[in-house]
């Protein structure tokens, strides 16, 4: 049963990561990219969690906490220093 779950979650998380990467590439603004990068980090965390649960080890637990910390620091920093550089306000 674990093998089926691993396959299903691998497919689902790959699709989700592809969607987040498409949003990072397309933009249109910096804040959209920050948000999509945050989601991508959450997807990585989900993948680490599923790997730990399926193989029954706890090696990546600290990495999971570190990933959430890095996502927090990154998005807060970028949001603090973001500036409006667009001419057309309504393009998002």
């Amino acid at each position, binding site marked *: *049963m*674990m093998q089926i*779950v691993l396959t*299903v*979650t691998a497919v*689902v*998380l790959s*699709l*989700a*990561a*592809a*969607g*987040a990467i*498409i*949003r990072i590439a397309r933009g249109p*603004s910096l*804040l*959209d990219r*920050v*948000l*999509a990068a*945050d*989601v991508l980090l*959450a*997807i990585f*965390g*989900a993948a680490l*969690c*599923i790997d*730990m*649960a*399926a193989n*029954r080890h*706890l090696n990546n*637990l600290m990495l*999971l*906490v570190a990933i*959430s*910390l890095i*996502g*927090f620091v990154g*998005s*807060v920093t970028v*949001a*603090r220093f*973001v*500036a*409006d550089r667009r001419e057309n*306000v*309504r393009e*998002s």
Partner: protein
Amino acid sequence: MNPETVIDAVSAVFMVVGALMSLGAAVGLLRFPDLMSRMHAATKPQVLGLFLLLAALGLQMRTWWVWPVLVVAWLFQLLTVPVSAHMVGRAGYRTKHLHPELLSADELEAVVQKAAQKAARQAAARHGTDDDADR
């Protein structure tokens, strides 16, 4: 049907649903029209998805001491996610990354206009005194 099978089944369901949260966030990121609604979709895997996956991990480990660690990891995420979402939303509002016609209520607009009027009045007053000093 022994308890081991039940625990395995429950954690399998948790894992699949938690992964679907990520997929839902990605679909929301791709399809929603502006930053605010995309932020709404993006919080799904960060809180509920992580909770489901950590619960699956705790069920699979079959040891009691791992639960406090998982709770701490989840609480940490629960504390940091609203702060970063607040900062991103604030920056998005200030740089006009929103469609005002999609909002059902905008309670910040009155405050922002009031602050802008006050700043304009202060700037005008300061300008007046500068002119007096020049003369």
